[in-house]
């Protein structure tokens, strides 16, 4: 089952990358604010069971894909 994990800097955490992107967008003439830059992980999980896939993905996020002190995550499962 194909899954996408979105990792974001938690609210309130300073995000210098987001600030740099926002500043560049402004230089290009776009009226933007509060840009935040995260990370995206696409992965195939070897199960067709949605509940099982979600449980595994949560463990992946907690063990490796995110640092819970500074990052939050969101899991999206592809509709089979």
């Amino acid at each position, binding site marked *: 089952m194909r899954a996408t994990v979105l990792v974001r800097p938690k609210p309130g*955490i*300073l995000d*210098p*990358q987001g600030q*740099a992107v926002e500043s560049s967008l402004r230089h290009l003439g776009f009226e933007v604010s509060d840009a935040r830059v995260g990370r995206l992980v696409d992965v195939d999980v070897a199960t067709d069971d949605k509940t099982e896939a979600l449980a595994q993905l949560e463990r992946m996020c907690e063990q*490796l*894909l995110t*640092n819970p*002190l*500074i990052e939050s995550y969101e899991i999206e499962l592809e509709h089979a």
Partner: protein
Amino acid sequence: MRDARPVIPVIVWPGSNDDRDAQLALERLGAEAPRVWHTDEALPRETAAVVLPGGFSYGDYLRCGAIARFSPVLRAVEAFAAEGGLVLGICNGFQILTEAGLLPGVLRPNASLSFVCRDVQLNVGQTNTAFTSRCVDGQELTVPVKHGDGCWFADDELLAELDANGQLVLRYAAGANPNGAIADVAGVINAAGNVFGLMPHPEHAVDPLLGSADGALILGSLVDAARLSLAAAV
């Protein structure tokens, strides 16, 4: 016993690049410092302390230290630390220790988003640790940093707790913070006092020819403490 050379292994990951400097510095300061490969499942039997050196373990993919923390040798380091063994993490080693949960906080990309490589001034906040015993209270040290991800962060609650416990052992001097670390923190010790991590590189500052010998105070403190633990074990 006084002249015994304590064994202080230096761990090597693919991408470590300060392991030989750490080894050389420790040996000059009176230790045996074998390099131990990341796939080893055990530390040398006589190990009196362990050093996790700087570099870019496993390419620093995902987050610095995030993958190295799962290497076989780290299980051995965790077990060693759990029994009170002395562990020092320098730069990437510090990042690995925070990712492994052996040290509080996290190291994030520098606020400037630029790699910094220069000497910085540090204030020693605690001298009653195994890693700073050769320093005097309030001493200012000059030690180089070279990192892209050295911005140490802890939330307000954790920061206050660490401060109250005296765990914020090293701080950048006023105006010398190279990375935006919160509260100018350069080095943190765990509550038990046996695991310490810092972003600056003491192993690159052990001889006046290198611009400073202040790093020898930190590594020398570790060698002293390792020798004491050796004597205690006999």
